């Protein structure tokens, strides 16, 4: 069996599970973000009374943190009341950060667990050898009531990535390469197991970037076999004992794709589809209005460092707004300690408090009609960050910073030359 199947089998009280069958599995942790007040409504509409386990469910306020409108303030208020009434042990208010960063930091993500959240990017937690998957509000309400959820045991696709890219090419470039090949529906209903020499040596942050974007190929979940760096990270933080799960030798993947990244060049997903991926150098000159470093994909310490390394002692182009939004308070504090935020502000950046920012046009830097944004986030759908007539290019933090510097989409490896 694959590790993912073993996790599903363990949590559904079974010895074996088979691809395609429906199992009812115990959820180890359930997380609700602040877009989903409907979860609370559905909970009561289904005659829910008590959350099944107060230690295993939490709200994270990130999409509207801090509240930009009266309506979103009301959402927060009703969620806080529910969390208080239910006496939930964990609660992450507007001072915490993006859910997918906050959860591992709090030790609530560890190998071999099932984490379900009301957010499609819950695939991120494959980075820790956990089964993470996203659901909607009513599915989440059924979990809060019963502690269980039905799963179809997915086919597992292997995406093997070998080689070490040159300096300036980041995990975001690697996952964009994969996305360009598998396309936006390449893994619908399936799981993706990322393997290969590149993944084996990759740190926690890079792994999270790649698993995060598995959902952009339609995947139900992503998986990476934990390496030493992952185990060191979770060992220091995990709130429960855990057991690392391994895929059986000789497991037959439903499909295998192979990528070699040694000579990879910076990639970009052009508007308005995540799989519209090109070598950055093959894209015509694009003038930008906004550059954004942040989100559950590209707002970690490593991402902010990459931007600071490029912008240190320089000034961004006069017509560009550079937004930097650390993914969590921990990331923000580390970025302050290391001096990155000071350097970025000196270069002309606008810093906002941890949260999702303008990624989904909820607040903090939405873009107007006709404007162009280059972003470390994960989606460039029409209207995703504001006006339906705006354009989003998805790229690595290094590319975003290099582009902020020149005011045009720019390859970070040929700094300012293009």
């Amino acid at each position, binding site marked *: 069996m694959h590790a993912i199947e073993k996790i599903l089998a363990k949590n559904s009280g079974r010895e074996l599970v088979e691809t395609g069958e*429906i199992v009812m599995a115990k959820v180890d942790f359930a997380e609700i973000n602040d*877009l*989903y*007040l*409907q979860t609370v*409504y*559905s909970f009561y*509409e*289904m*005659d*829910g009374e008590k959350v099944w386990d107060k230690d295993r469910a939490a709200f994270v306020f990130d*999409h*509207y943190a801090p509240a930009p*409108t009266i*309506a*979103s303030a009301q*959402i927060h208020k009703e969620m806080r009341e529910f969390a208080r009434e239910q006496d939930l042990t964990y609660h992450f208010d507007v001072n915490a950060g993006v859910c997918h960063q906050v959860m591992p930091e709090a030790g609530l993500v560890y190998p071999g667990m099932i984490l379900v959240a*009301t*957010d*499609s990017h819950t695939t991120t937690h494959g980075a820790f050898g956990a089964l993470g998957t*996203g*659901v*909607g*509000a*009513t*599915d989440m309400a*059924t979990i809060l*009531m*019963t502690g269980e959820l*039905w799963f*179809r045991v997915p086919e597992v696709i292997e995406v093997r990535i070998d080689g070490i890219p040159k300096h300036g090419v980041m995990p975001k470039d690697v996952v964009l390469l994969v996305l360009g090949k598998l396309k*936006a*529906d390449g893994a*619908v*209903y399936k799981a993706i197991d990322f393997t290969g020499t590149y993944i084996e040596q990759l740190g926690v942050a890079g792994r999270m970037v790649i698993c995060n974007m598995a959902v952009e190929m*339609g995947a*139900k979940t992503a998986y990476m076999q934990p390496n030493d760096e992952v185990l060191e990270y979770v060992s220091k933080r995990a709130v429960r004992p855990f057991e690392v799960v391994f895929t059986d030798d000789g497991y037959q993947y439903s499909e295998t794709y192979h990528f070699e990244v040694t000579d990879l060049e910076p990639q970009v997903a052009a508007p308005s*589809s995540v799989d519209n991926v090109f070598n950055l150098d093959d894209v015509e000159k694009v003038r930008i209005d906004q550059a954004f470093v942040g989100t559950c994909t590209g707002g970690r310490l490593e991402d902010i460092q990459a931007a600071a390394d490029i912008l240190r002692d320089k000034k961004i182009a006069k017509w560009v707004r550079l937004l930097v939004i650390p993914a969590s308070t921990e990331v923000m504090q580390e970025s302050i300690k290391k001096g990155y935020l000071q350097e970025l502000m000196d270069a002309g950046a606008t810093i906002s408090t941890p949260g999702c920012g303008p990624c*989904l*046009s*909820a607040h903090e830097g*939405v873009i107007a009609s006709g404007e162009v944004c280059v972003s470390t986030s994960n*989606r460039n*759908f*029409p*209207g*995703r960050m*504001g006006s*339906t007539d705006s354009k989003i290019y998805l790229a690595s933090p290094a590319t975003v910073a290099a582009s902020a510097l020149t005011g045009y989409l720019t390859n970070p490896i040929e700094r300012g030359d293009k």
Partner: protein
Amino acid sequence: MDTKISGKVIVLGNNIDTDQIYPGRFLEITNAEEIGKRCLSGVSPEIAEKFQKGDIVVAGTNFGCGSSREHAAIAIINMGSSVVLADSFARIFFRNAINLGLPLITCKGISSKVKDGQLVELDIEAGELTVKETGEVLKTDKLGDYAMSILEAGGIKPLMREKMRKLKADQ
């Protein structure tokens, strides 16, 4: 749930994501009727304005990709489409729709075989879709037993209420 549905189709393209079905700027709205009025406004605000109750949304591949927002399914239901037909559906959207009692029927190739305004007749149990104008009959995929059981109950909410009643009766 009606297993035989007929109506005029509105045909959309491939990869219609949840931001196009229900833009992020409207996510703080919680009233279902208001959500329905903004359905597909990321494609065109005119779609919801012109939509007549009973019309049917038809799309290409990977309909509902992107965010897990249940608003997308709530919007389609409240705009008045009692079923969605597509070449294929994204996973979270599929779960959300079935949970809310909205059948999603996969019919490979449908988006290129029907045109806006054409009348279709769908028989979910037989797995057949008839295009009235041409008389062409297309095969549709059958839903799994578990999804059908949720739809037959009118969605997961009635099922869960029943489960809670039984649990309480046993205590």
